[in-house]
């Protein structure tokens, strides 16, 4: 079995995380910004699994399991907040949701 270097997985993970950051900063829709957070979580999970494989330990996989569970809870609460936001402010544009801004 030809082993793929772990470093490649890490580089891919970094690329996905960077793209997630770019999406988080550039997108203007609240839902899409929330999705870019999920993208970043996925990138970190990939790094966790790659390291777990490299060090031949299971702890990384357990962490990934917990990250996925917490992401599910986060998605439920976050989307409920977004629904509230859409009902009260009637917009999903982040530029108009500036109530807490100076």
């Amino acid at each position, binding site marked *: 079995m030809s082993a793929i270097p772990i470093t490649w997985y*890490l580089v891919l993970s970094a690329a996905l995380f960077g793209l997630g950051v770019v999406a988080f900063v550039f997108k203007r829709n609240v839902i899409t910004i929330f999705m870019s957070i999920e993208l970043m979580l996925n990138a970190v999970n990939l790094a966790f699994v790659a390291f777990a494989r490299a060090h031949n330990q299971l702890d990384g996989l357990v962490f990934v399991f917990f990250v996925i569970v917490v992401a599910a809870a986060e998605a439920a609460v976050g989307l409920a907040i977004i629904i509230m936001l859409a009902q009260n402010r009637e917009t999903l544009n982040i530029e108009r949701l500036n109530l807490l801004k100076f």
Partner: protein
Amino acid sequence: MAGLELGEARMNIPLIVFFACALLAVAGAVTLILVREPIYSALALIVVMVAIAILYLLLGSEFIAAVQIIVYGGAIMVLFVFVIMLLNAGAEERTSYSKLATYVGLPLAFFLLLEIAHWLARARVPAAGGPPAEGVSSRALATQLFRQYLFPFEATSILILVAVLGALVLARKSE
């Protein structure tokens, strides 16, 4: 001769799968950024998640791959698509980006990416240490989860309960 070539081709299959999935994931992430309709962004994110699940399979952790497909692809993304449909979210409005963001932000983001990749490439990790070829057994993972990590596991169940209650309270139509 032909057998040798076949053998080499078979050895390269993980490599081909890796590059196909990596390209698919990066293309999906770029699509998420470029596309303006939230529903297309969600579909691009689903592509990324499936590609990452295949990479988990390649890394020999079937259980995590299954959880990725079921929980991320099957539950979280369906929730996203559901909310997008419910709110009837159309194309996002273009706002006037500042010139600074366009001409400095993008190169800086690219530079950040390059920097992270550079340091990761230099990181000293054991070269694909020898886990069993059949991958990590779900039994070993379950043992770890229910022995060493039992308390965090129970804590997450309470977290999920609180999250469900919170979502209910938040999304309820206030009288």
